[in-house]
């Protein structure tokens, strides 16, 4: 053991300089080469488009429920189990609230992503269906035609990767910014 201790300590120091220091700085340097729009920077609107925001008012497309109130400095999920009665009551309450705000809607039209909390609590996206079911309400509140809103949804829909892989989705922040830009 003693023969190994000194080399072990020295090797640990060398490794820490190399992997904490040089590796991190190398990645830092490489990241500086990334073009503005693909690195983690604020967009023209002054927001981080990848970080979800809370939208609960009727004039905006609502974002998904969040277990942490869209706190991007303490993100997290609900960690509720699928059979937990308190959790299921919460989902039921979300359904009821959503129906109150969107009276023209039938229950079986609501997609599950609108009544379940995301894993990070700052999910920036909703499904296309989740946007479509909110069109009537927003048209009424903003006094604009449903066709215009549907057009925005179509413009903002992000297809699966290369049209082949993954989900179809919409960034709620970008969608709402487009909505505000109408006037």
């Amino acid at each position, binding site marked *: 053991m003693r023969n190994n201790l000194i080399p072990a300590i020295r090797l640990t120091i060398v490794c820490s300089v190399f992997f904490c220091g040089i590796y991190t700085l190398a990645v830092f340097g490489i990241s500086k080469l990334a073009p503005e729009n693909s690195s983690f920077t604020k967009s023209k609107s002054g927001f981080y488009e990848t970080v979800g925001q809370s939208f609960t008012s009727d004039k905006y497309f609502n974002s998904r429920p969040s277990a942490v109130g869209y706190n991007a400095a303490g993100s997290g999920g609900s960690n*509720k*189990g699928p059979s937990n009665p308190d959790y299921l009551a919460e989902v039921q309450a979300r*359904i009821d609230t959503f129906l109150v705000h969107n009276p023209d809607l039938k229950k079986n039209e609501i997609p599950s992503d609108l009544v*379940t909390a995301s894993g990070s609590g700052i999910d920036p996206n909703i499904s296309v269906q989740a946007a479509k079911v909110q069109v009537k309400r927003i048209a009424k509140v903003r006094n604009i035609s449903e066709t215009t809103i549907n057009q925005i949804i179509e413009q903002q829909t992000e297809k699966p990767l290369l049209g082949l892989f993954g*989900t179809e989705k919409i960034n709620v922040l970008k969608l709402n910014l487009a909505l505000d830009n109408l006037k």
Partner: protein
Amino acid sequence: MNTEILGVILMYATVVTLAIPLGRYIGKIFNYENTWLDKIFNPLDKLFFKLSGIDPTKEMNWKQHLVALLTINVVWFVLSMLVLTNMSWLPLNPDGNPSMSADLAFNTSVSFVTNTNLQHYSGESGLSYLGQLILMLWQFISAGTGIAICAVVFMAMKERTSETLGNFYSFFVRACTRILLPLALVVASLLAFNGTPMTFEGKDSLTTLEGQEQQVTRGPVAAFVAIKQLGTNGGGFYGPNSANPMENPNYFTNIVETISIFLIPIAMVFAIGYVLKRRKLALTIFGVMTIGFLLLLIPSIYFEMNGNTAITQMGIQQNMGSMEGKEVRFGSAASAYWAINTTCTSNGSVNAMHDSMTPLTGMFTLLGMMINCFYGGVGVGFLNFYIFIILAVFISGLMVGRTPEFLGKKIEAKEMKIAMVIALLHPFLILVSTAISSFLYAGNPTEYAGWLANPGYHGFSEMLYEFTSSSANNGSGFEGLGDNTPFWNIACGLVMLLARYLPIIGPVAIAGILASKKYIPESNGTLKTDTSTFGLMVFAVIAIVAALAFFPALTLGPIAEYFSMIK
């Protein structure tokens, strides 16, 4: 075809395609053959050894390998404790985060040095950037340890009689610099170019479109996430790991990160074929692992895409599947795929909350960790599989009435005893510790009310999952468990320690003893170990030893929950 399923097929096809050449490269590294990166790495390695005062050509026997491994791990643990309990006043702490309590620092240090990455803290508020960087160091070198010790077992399996098996430090440095470092640089760059933060600035605050104040935690995330995925570490920069849109911004980064989980574990299997010049043996092992993996994967994807039956009963559409704890940009198929990837290997990172998955998916993630060798952690996954091979050789030998031999070495009572102890250790640690915690909880549910976020069967699953994850050195969690208490910090810490080092010592001892035995060339009487029949035999041993030992516990948790939900 469904684009979510296509995404899963793409990820698996790509990782196997990449793992084949990587396996050959890893094989060359441990055979000390020339590779095209030698120009950079030969001088770099020389510098490492010169500064550390190590002679990398000094041959070691299996005991010396283990002593070297354990000594350096002790050094890491001590250094980790020092940093984590003093972070608050050390540099690189722009958000002013506090130091850890002693029990939390113990848990976290053990967790990262053992390649587990169980996290009882949340990265945003529980660590300074120095803390994150020191944990990132363990992510590199604990993975390097696993690969190095696996290389020792490869050396022992060669067709020769030998006491010495190469030099531990040499394998270790080669694993870190020549395998982990280049891959981490590539992955970190891909992430940084796709919207993952890489900065040393502290939190940013902004006013949202609806007028609320929002704080955004940043940091050197890209560098951290790359090695956490590649080294089967799994400890995230942010609390919810790769579900967080900064840690994993889009479907492309999700593909990159998912591939990084499986890449080295699969490549290690192909490396065996290269090092030993036994391609058929490698393919047999790969076949058994793949079938096992698919058996866990396919039902998990099915159940997640079908959604939560309790929510279906409320009359809600679940076109996207069960979405509680999941992100829209990944969807349920890619989340289930990640969940099985991360539990079959000992990675433990997540892109969706396992606690909220449907009951049987929860069970398959548990089974992945209970078996812990369908590809498995970098290096150590093969060590676990090696134990099952030894058991299968012995049992088959008894069945056909031949002396059990593996790769020309006789397996005798001593090796069998070690193999049995190691095979039973994992169920023992998991079941005994879960029994103790259940007993405490049942005896005083009001005092321990903070432990469980969910009642009933699911609450039991949370405790079972935590100890399974600790014992498998996995690190994922049913995060509803209130686990930052002295009981969980210390109990999980002890389980992680025993479950890391004993399953390294056991296989290395067996391999070392076998290596020094006389080599018997293959003859007609030799039991063939590279056939599908033998593959089936290994599979049966895994099913009996690993899976059946846990069946009663699984019945009390996820299976009971599943049946309680169908009406």
